[in-house]
């Protein structure tokens, strides 16, 4: 796909016009876009900040497979009260008549999953009021529960895919059958660019969603072009990125001399071709690549943190070590100006670990043990370092789970009502916004489609979703969403 902003060899006017502010903003891809200010001049399709920004960075935590909302952040005692009855037999049978159910778009009819489940299944975990705000959170989330005064819970999310293509949909705003469109991270990268020249600006941690459910499209740039793709990093300083380190027997000092020769030869060419912006960009890219060999492994060195900090993220426990390391690396990244860090939890090569069609109790208990402490640690650590003010943390999953039982002890996919929460970056704390009905079936009050989360995040970063457009690609109203004003401080 063609992006007019990077057509440097042909865009002489753009290039010459750009000289005054340094050529990197125009020429270079994902690593180099400086602040939106550089973007705001000189080239077509540019974006000036539309609002006073309240946040600079985003950490986007995504639970792959569909985390249960009623056993997390939207407890429903009515489920326990009417357990074993069908919904028709309960006092809430009207729920089944709601028109909201028409929103669903089924990919494959002959599927065992993604059905209406009518036998009410009781809550599998207790819950209690937490924090000053007294917000009810389940006992599987005690640590996050201790942070509720910094969190705004949106309990009224809905989406349209009843299967795990909803993972892609959560990130692009479109149903999987409509293709792989730009994701929220790519739009932010496109709109704002980077604050750090030595690190990628849109980083993906954890294993991305599997190719059943959107695959690399889940952090992909769609038509925005490859330079707006999320860059996958491993929290492994020995191999954080493909080709990141000298290897294959090349000594560091040997490589330094090789790079010096490359630089020298390229500069000779640059004096021969003074009008070639790509050449100058390439010289710069080699300087940056050389630094990235250090900066990228460095930023993922979570072992440099104090024992206290590591414990805060649960690195001292086997269950939470992996995800904790990713959360801690994410903090180190935003500290250094990485714009958007997307962390996937629960990728298992298929639908995702949170997909508890059976044995939900054990499944969610175990998974919460992996993520509860790291997430709370992240919030607390950001806060004590003064970073929570400028960093939005989003916690989400592609959909919730059915109020009715599936199999012996599970819940099915549920696109009609689920919870997403946000913290930091000018989001109000201690707030519950929206609600599902008494069974947690439909979002009924202040309903929000997934792109409302995008619009909210963009708004806090200073961007108007409607202004993110590139010629030739029509966006629909549903793509833009609306900021959830009620949770903005």
């Amino acid at each position: 796909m063609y992006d007019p902003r990077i057509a440097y060899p042909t865009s002489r006017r753009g290039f010459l016009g750009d000289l005054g502010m340094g050529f990197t903003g125009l020429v270079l891809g994902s690593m180099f876009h400086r602040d939106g200010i550089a973007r705001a001049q000189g080239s077509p399709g540019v974006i000036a900040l539309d609002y006073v920004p309240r946040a600079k960075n985003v950490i986007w935590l995504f639970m792959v497979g569909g985390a249960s909302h009623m056993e997390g952040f939207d407890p429903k005692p009515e489920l326990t009260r009417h357990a074993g009855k069908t919904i028709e037999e309960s006092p809430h049978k009207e729920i089944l008549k709601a028109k909201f159910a028409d929103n669903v778009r089924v990919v494959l009819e002959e599927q065992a999953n993604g059905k209406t489940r009518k036998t009410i299944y009781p809550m599998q975990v207790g819950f209690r009021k937490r924090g000053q705000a007294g917000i009810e959170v389940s006992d599987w989330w005690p640590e996050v529960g201790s942070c509720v005064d910094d969190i705004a819970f949106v309990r009224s999310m809905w989406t349209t895919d009843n299967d795990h293509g909803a993972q892609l949909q959560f990130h692009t705003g479109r149903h999987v059958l409509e293709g792989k469109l730009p994701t929220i991270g790519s739009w932010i990268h496109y709109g704002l660019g980077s604050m750090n020249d030595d690190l990628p600006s849109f980083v993906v941690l954890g294993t991305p969603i599997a190719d059943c459910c959107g695959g690399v499209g889940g952090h992909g740039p769609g038509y925005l072009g490859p330079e707006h793709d999320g860059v996958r990093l491993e929290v492994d300083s020995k191999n954080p990125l493909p080709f990141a380190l000298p290897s294959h027997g090349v000594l560091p000092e040997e490589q330094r001399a090789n790079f010096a020769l490359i630089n020298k030869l390229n500069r000779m060419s640059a004096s021969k071709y003074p009008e070639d912006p790509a050449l100058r960009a390439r010289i710069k890219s080699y300087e940056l690549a050389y630094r990235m060999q250090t900066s990228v492994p460095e930023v993922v060195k979570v072992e440099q943190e104090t024992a206290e900090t590591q414990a805060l993220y649960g690195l001292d426990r086997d269950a939470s070590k992996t995800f904790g390391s990713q959360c801690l690396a994410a903090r180190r990244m935003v500290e250094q100006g990485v714009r958007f860090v997307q962390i996937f939890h629960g990728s298992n090569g298929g639908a995702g670990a949170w997909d508890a069609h059976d044995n939900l109790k054990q499944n969610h208990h175990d998974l919460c043990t992996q993520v509860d402490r790291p997430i709370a640690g992240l919030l607390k650590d950001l806060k004590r370092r003064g970073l929570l003010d400028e960093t939005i943390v989003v916690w989400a999953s592609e959909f919730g789970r059915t109020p009715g039982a599936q199999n012996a002890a599970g819940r099915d996919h549920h696109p009609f009502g689920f919870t997403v929460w946000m913290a930091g970056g000018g989001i109000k704390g201690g707030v519950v916004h929206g609600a599902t009905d008494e069974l947690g079936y439909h979002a009924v009050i202040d309903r929000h489609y997934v792109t409302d989360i995008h619009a909210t995040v963009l708004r806090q970063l200073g961007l108007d979703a409607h202004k993110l457009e590139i010629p030739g690609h029509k966006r629909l109203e549903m793509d833009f969403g609306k900021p959830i004003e009620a949770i903005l401080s």
Partner: protein
Amino acid sequence: MTLCTAILLAAFAVPADRGGDASTIYLDHVKPILSRRCTACHGVLKHKAGLRLDTAAAIVKGGDSGSGVEPGEADASLILDRVTHADLAQRMPPEGEPLKAEEIAWIRDWISAGASVPANEPEPADPRKHWSFQVPQRPEIPGSRPGLNPIDGFLQADHRRLGVSPRPRAEKAELLRRVTIDLTGLSPTKAEYELFLNDTRPDAYVQLVDRLLASPRFGERWGRHWMDVWRYSDWDGFGQEIRESRPYIWQWRDWIVESLNADTGYDRMVTLMLAADEAEPDSDSALRATGFLARNWHRFNRDVWLNNAVEHTSKAFLGLTINCAKCHDHKYDPIAQTDYYRMRAVFEPHQIREDNQPAINGAEAQKITRAFDASPDVPTYLFLRGNEKSPDKTRLIEPGAPAFLPDSSFAVATVSMSRATRHPALRDFEKQGLMAEARKLIQVANKTLASASSSDFHVQQGNVAVFEARKAALVARIDADEAKLDEPPGPEFKALAHRARLAERAATLRESELALAKAQQSLAEVRSKVKPDNAKSKADLAAAEKALADSATALTANLAKPPDDLTEYTAVGPISPSRSTGRRLALARWITSKGNPLTARVAVNHVWTRHFVRPLVASPSDFGRNGKLPTNPALLDWLATELMEADWSLKHIHRLIVTSDAYTRQSSGPEPNVEGHASDPENTTLWEMNVRRLEAEAVRDNLLFLSGKLDETRGGPDLDPEQAMTLGRRSLYLRHAQEKRATFLRIFDSPSAVECYRRSESVMPQQALALANSPLAITCAREMASRLTKEAKGDHEFVSLAFVTTLSRQATPEELDACLAFLKEQAAGLSGVKLPATAKPESSQPSADPPQRAREGLVHALFNHSDFVTIR
């Protein structure tokens, strides 16, 4: 503040920052609002309710409900009423957000100020008159004279007009590298470099071009370009489950490469891709072309599949965004929503299947994935608002071309399908294979019988009987299938079908008898070993007795089965309809007709873009009114007519382009071209050549090629992209799908398999890391250094050879000095250091000798040189 109060406030107060006379308000504010939100339905394309809002005069005149405005009386004006209406069903515009308070206020201001009509407001042009919808007329070549390349004639006219002097012809070495990579994807070799530089014949360059165009590498290079446009994708899916495109689609890739090498006409290529099964139904070679359609195969959703067929057929061949008319009439082009479904109807009957191919010379047997019309009678309906859940069943949509284009003749004629096409399993090689397999099973069973022990004899005898009965049934089924294929089925079909059913039944009985024999054998065996006191032994005995009884019952049941419907035999394979609708062939003929104004223009624009970087029409998949205008319309039209007059020979167009002055010009010089930059800063007139970066595939292929590691085997199944660092084959043979792509190629902007009408070209540090640290770059550098050391006498000659081989040019004295100094210092620095070997199997070992290791570093640096990835 709610929207309503905003409107109310606006009604009573005109803010200070608005104002001006009515005409200015209209032109600066009202007209842009109306054109953004209203004129798609009330304008030149459509005038719903008889109302047009694209000129002030038309607004005042109004439509079926009377005048749109009452000058001076905003509140009595129809348009203001409709945009502020409280009833959502009445309020305009019907889609999207309501007009903003500020927008409404501007309309109010204009009406209040008298709604005056500006003088000479032009009436918007008839969209059907858009340039690209007119059949191209062959223009005169400006300044035509013998020996002038027509392309230069058109460009020179622009240069004279702009007062620009183009840059001179490029140096021979630069030109050699440019045209060699452009036409073959690979650098010139050192031998080619010397040959060309020493070739003083006046036509040396033309000879070079002819040689390159004749090289089989040409098809691989340009095949990849067209694979972008035609959105080639190997199969994609979840694990091994295929969800999009098909396995064996690589056969289409090979067909593309071969067709380009054979200079098959573009018209024929398009025809075969859309309808080889109707144009040449019995040619396996041609059928491969329908991979273009198989690529759209979608496991879950037929609508997604057909939408892609419609969208990308029209974008790739016609430069039309017909897909925008799926839910409503097109907002820019005169494409009605019906036109979208007329094109869908073309594809509605088709399906994809895989046909076996005979194994050739003992090689692994392959299949062809191909299109065919499976359901000629399936109806097409328009989907209301594009929603597949709301088909408008009151009206059957007939296949056809968009009605607005000058030649919309669309002659659909059904095509008879041969027996072999309808029933590929009955082709001789397939029948022979089935029979050989049946005979082999009997043979093996007989052999076992011959050496069977007495206790095993009955079972083995039964086994032979089963395979013989199956063979007899196969023969009978084949005979019945053959008769069924007759149109109408022959009078003997019923009898043959009956016979086939009986034969199948006989085989079933033999199977039951065999099961019985086996049960008897097991029972005898169990009995011989039975230990009366052992519970397990008893259970075994009981189980064996039960198995015997069950087998006996099953046999009796099979024998007793009434011959109720004895014509229901099992066909040898699926039989497809005897006629194909001919719809796709009709579409292909319409697309490739010389009366189609778009096809040739779109094709030459694609070719032009890949030679010159900058297209003539900057929106290659949208030649409609929302697309870009051609930078040189006469040149585009001349090339388009030339393509058609040259029997759609693409090589003819390539040759014209690469032999033009425009192509052979310097891309830059030591001095800036002041007039060029001033008068034509975007270089649309090509006063200099454009510089570009190697595409992903060319970066990898040239590393392999220069180091002597390239395996030039052509064609064949897609290769594992995870092996990109160690395989020696050209990159176009690596599996390429959205989810399955080589990392190294992705870093260098390999195309999206979903849509890539034009590649993007980025400069990113990941690219630097890939060339600096990948095992491929490192291995290639080591092997090339080792090879060059064998040829070169000293460092000086080594550097010189390395430059010529890698960059096809001599090192400048300055570069030579820098490289010699590097070799010396690096060797000195490395001597005495413990040099590590690599433990990784995917790269070769570095030299243990410091001077040689320094040379490896030098070659590696040249692979990282900007000039290596740049075509000047």
